[in-house]
């Protein structure tokens, strides 16, 4: 391991520890957070990663099935709303620090030493943002059409067709409980695995391809963070005055959130602090912007 990689590992150790914690908090057979909530409310169901599905409540709302969020899946809906609302105040910290789906693909990208020239990165943040929100609009269109039965029910919901959480949950179940859990493969899960881990994880620089383009919760949290940033809540800012233009921040940012002028695109930023730990020009601020001080 190079000295730089070691330094990055040490400086960002709390985030990597949080990745592991996220796994134990949400993924069965552990699912400690969900288990604790279920215990408190007397729910006897077995908690899994599906109990806090990051996408289904969004699908329901845009599909006009509001009633679903008040039913037995209330915890799932409450969780998703908490993530989005907290992003206004603290940034998309769930995505950057706790989400097990993003953590696995990012960890894989860091662990497998593929040369940089073979990795894909879009340097133009406007393009990344356009694509991210384009995919969100596509997700909403399908949620709407399926929700209102303009499309036949047999096509199923868009989030269950391509479910990275399912793939992760089944891997975890196979590893810790029943090895046969890994034998559930179908074309949707294979395609998801390919995009989540192979293309989005290994080939995309930073390993967050799935989060960048296919996670509606990530996209909505990004919007919430943008609003929060405008209102003066926690956000990462760049200080032009001390920037040397080395571009290290750009290559470290897993979310491709650093623009070519080194300012931060907030709809993409997950407040992971990789840039802050690598360079003094970045600071996590609240209230006044760096340049006003």
């Amino acid at each position, binding site marked *: 391991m190079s000295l730089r990689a070691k330094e990055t590992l040490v400086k960002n150790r709390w985030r990597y520890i949080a990745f592991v914690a996220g796994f134990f908090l949400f993924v069965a057979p552990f699912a400690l957070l969900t288990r604790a909530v279920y215990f408190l409310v007397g729910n006897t169901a077995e908690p899994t990663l599906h109990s806090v599905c990051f996408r289904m409540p969004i699908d329901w709302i845009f599909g006009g099935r509001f009633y679903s969020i008040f039913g037995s899946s209330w915890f799932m809906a409450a969780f998703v709303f908490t993530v989005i609302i907290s992003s206004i105040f603290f940034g998309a910290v769930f995505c950057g620090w706790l989400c097990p789906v993003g953590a696995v693909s990012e960890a894989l990208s860091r662990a497998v030493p593929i040369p940089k020239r073979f990795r894909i990165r879009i340097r133009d943040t406007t393009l990344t943002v356009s694509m991210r929100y*384009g995919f969100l609009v*596509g997700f909403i269109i399908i949620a709407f059409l399926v929700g209102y039965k303009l499309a036949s029910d*047999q096509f199923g919901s868009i989030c*269950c067709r391509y479910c990275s959480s399912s793939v992760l949950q089944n891997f975890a179940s196979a590893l810790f409980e029943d090895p046969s859990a890994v034998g559930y493969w179908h*074309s949707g899960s294979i395609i998801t695995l390919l995009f989540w881990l192979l*293309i989005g994880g290994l080939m995309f620089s930073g390993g967050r391809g799935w989060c960048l383009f296919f996670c509606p919760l990530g996209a909505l949290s990004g919007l919430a963070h943008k609003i929060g940033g405008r209102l003066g809540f926690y956000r990462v800012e760049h200080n032009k005055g001390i920037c040397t233009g080395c571009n290290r921040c750009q290559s470290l940012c897993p979310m491709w959130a650093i623009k070519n002028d080194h300012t931060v695109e907030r709809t993409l930023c997950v407040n992971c602090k990789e840039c802050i730990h690598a360079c003094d020009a970045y600071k996590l601020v609240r209230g006044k912007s760096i340049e006003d001080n």
Partner: protein
Amino acid sequence: MRITEKLKMWWAFAMAASALPSSYFLTMSCCGTCAGCPICGSCLLAYPILLAIVIMARLIRAGKGLLRQRQTGQ
């Protein structure tokens, strides 16, 4: 923002926004007749398109690099 940049932005947005719905609906005939797999034929379209985009992006980048190399004569 220059007009070409705006156009590029809206083009990317429109392409991304139409990718999922078009893959969903264009494959309906496959899904409607069989429905044997849970993704109902989306694999026919969505991911080959995505892969094509990735490959094209790489080719364009490589082409640009080559052009730049020729221009600078290095």
